């Protein structure tokens, strides 16, 4: 082989190749985030944003009881939704990967799973309201059947409704990466485990679950970050009675309090990055890519 045909060490080629993506990230990710960080130190009044360097936005944010309550509430939602989407998503992915034998049916059933995405998020949420309401379909049916005497009020404008809507929205984000991981599992490993006398449950726990960890990790990142950043679902399904970090930011922006919203955004970004980092330490998602 001709030695001169090889790239010499220090060649500029790799840098040229990566430059376009780096520029895109710099312009559309780094610059906006830097702007948000800068604005978070500014001041404001009813009608102006005042360039400045003050710590007031952070001091209020980090010392306020409402921040703690809001984060506890938001993390609560994230944990509940994560647990439910994981349980449901794993079962669905397992069924699709190991019990549906033909590619055709896998595709058909996968398309079935995507049907909720054929309408917008907001319509999907709003459609729960006439179903779950005090005089909604479910309560009317239960009363008609004599199962209950009074409408079940916890069904709507409640934490229950918020979590239900989130699970409805986000389960597919757990199904897809887990399914992807499961499809990569060597089927002979399962046969070997069965030959060695493992029960079905043991196979799931000792073979399939560990080998699905990358998919679970990716799905978890999707679900947790989406819930942490949400504001519309919490507002609609709680009837405006619960708070999330996203709602607090939305309120501040609506009231022209951009510096306060920016500080909130910076803190949320830090918190979410820490959560993602923690998840990445548990799972090596590089095996998934």
């Amino acid at each position, binding site marked *: 082989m001709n030695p001169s045909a090889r790239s010499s060490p220090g060649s500029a080629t790799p840098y040229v190749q990566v430059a376009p993506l780096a520029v895109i990230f710099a312009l559309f990710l780094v610059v906006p985030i830097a702007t948000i960080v800068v604005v978070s130190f500014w001041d*404001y*009044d*009813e*009608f*102006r944003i005042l360039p400045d360097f003050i710590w007031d936005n952070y001091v*209020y944010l980090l010392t*306020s*009881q*409402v921040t703690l*309550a*809001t984060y506890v*509430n938001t993390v609560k939602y994230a944990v509940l939704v994560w647990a439910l989407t994981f349980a449901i998503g794993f079962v669905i992915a397992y069924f699709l990967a190991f019990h549906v034998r033909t590619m055709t049916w896998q595709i058909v059933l996968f398309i079935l799973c995507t049907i909720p995405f054929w309408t917008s998020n907001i319509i999907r949420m709003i459609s729960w*309201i*006439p179903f779950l*309401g*005090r*005089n*909604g379909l479910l309560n009317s049916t239960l009363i008609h059947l004599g199962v209950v005497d009074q409408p079940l*009020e916890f069904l*709507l*404008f409640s934490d229950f409704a918020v979590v239900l809507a989130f699970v409805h929205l986000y389960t597919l984000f757990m199904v897809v990466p887990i399914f992807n991981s499961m499809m990569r599992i060597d089927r002979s490993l399962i046969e070997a485990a069965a030959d060695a006398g493992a029960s079905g449950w043991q196979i799931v726990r000792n073979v399939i679950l560990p080998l699905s960890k990358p998919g679970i990790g990716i799905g978890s990142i999707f679900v947790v970050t989406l819930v942490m950043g949400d504001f519309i679902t919490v*507002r609609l399904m*709680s*009837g*405006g*009675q*619960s*708070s999330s970090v996203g*709602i*607090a930011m939305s*309120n*501040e*922006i*609506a*009231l*022209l*309090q951009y510096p306060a919203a920016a500080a909130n955004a910076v803190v949320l970004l830090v918190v979410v990055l820490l959560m993602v980092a923690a998840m990445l330490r548990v799972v090596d998602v590089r095996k998934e890519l």
Partner: protein
Amino acid sequence: MKRKPGATSRRTFLKNSAAIAAGAAIGSGAIPGFPAIWAQNIKNVTLRQFGTGVSNLNAIAEKCKQDLGITLQMTALDSDSVAQRAVTQPNSFDIADIEYWVCKKVFPAGNMQPMDTKKIKYYDKIVPIFLTGKLTPQSTIAQGTAPHTVGFAKGKNSVEFAAEETGWMTLIPTIYNADTLGIRPDLIKKPVKNWRDLLDPSFKGKASILNISSIGIMDAAMVCESMGEIKYGNKGNMTIAEIDKTMAIMTEAKKAGQFRAFWKSFDESVNLMAAGEVVIQSMWSPAVAAVRAKGIPCVYQPLAEGYRAWGGGIGLAKHLSGLELDAAYEYINWYLSGWVGAYLNRQGYYSACIETAKQHMSADEWAFWMEGKPAKTDILSPEGKVMEKAGSVRDGGSFYDRMGAVACWNAVMDENKYLVRKWNEFIAA
């Protein structure tokens, strides 16, 4: 060669072109003093107007085009988005149709220009609430951001509010109303007579208020004062101690499960009431009408302590000038000339010049909407739908009964920053 009949010669073409160019110069305003041509040119003017949904109505734009030739591009937003746009996107609009409490926020930003009252044809027919703060000479001026307190600028180029009438108006009033609690009389078994009934434990889990701090705080103040818990110096400009006490009472009620939901958009309010999720809530007039239009009983209940009022008006963008500015004044004068006023009155609102509106309403409509008398015939909405059956009486009675009992206006307070934080804490509790 003999020239063919009708052929255009080079000389003729040049002569005609010059005449066309001269006409264009005159019409464009480069050469002043030709009103007949000017009148033709406002038909080519487009004005971009935004504001809340209550008055950014397509029907008004259509009628304006028909009567004046001016094209209005209407954009309807919620209250907070209106303030946001007025402050942050000054070049995206020509006309801002904003509420007076929003005006207190955005006018000092310098994005709008005061209007010369000498150019306002019906200035002297504007309801005195917007000029002196008093509906009648005997009236008490209500608390809060009353329209007259932010209705005038100190001078032509000023961004400061004047305490009294000047020749420069910040907003031309367009629409206003007196708000109160709405109730489902078919689901409520006891009389509702006071604002404090919103926190009555017998309505636990069936009450609602709106989640807009400048408005919600005034509802909360009406409730707390009605309960006898607080006597405000000025509900429209609370001290920190008053804010704390008010929000503590509301937070306690929330934690006790008093509220079924909070609403932010008109549709949410209508749906909560129509579905029976809520039986008592702070409502807006068209929401009450919308619930009734579904055949569901809903009453806009007069209360002993009075009403919380709101008002909106038209303001002009700072950058507006020349032909567009002239067209804007034409629009304002047309707006106050009666057709629009009658349209708004038929929706259950009040208009700025009720004298001119009266000329565009039937005697029965006027008697029902403004005089509080029983309807002789079915009362129709501007779109022709039946709003009220013959024999019905407007909730709360006449214009003077309702606007004469205003206790406060939606407000922006000096401690607004603190208030917003406390309000957010209340929502998060």
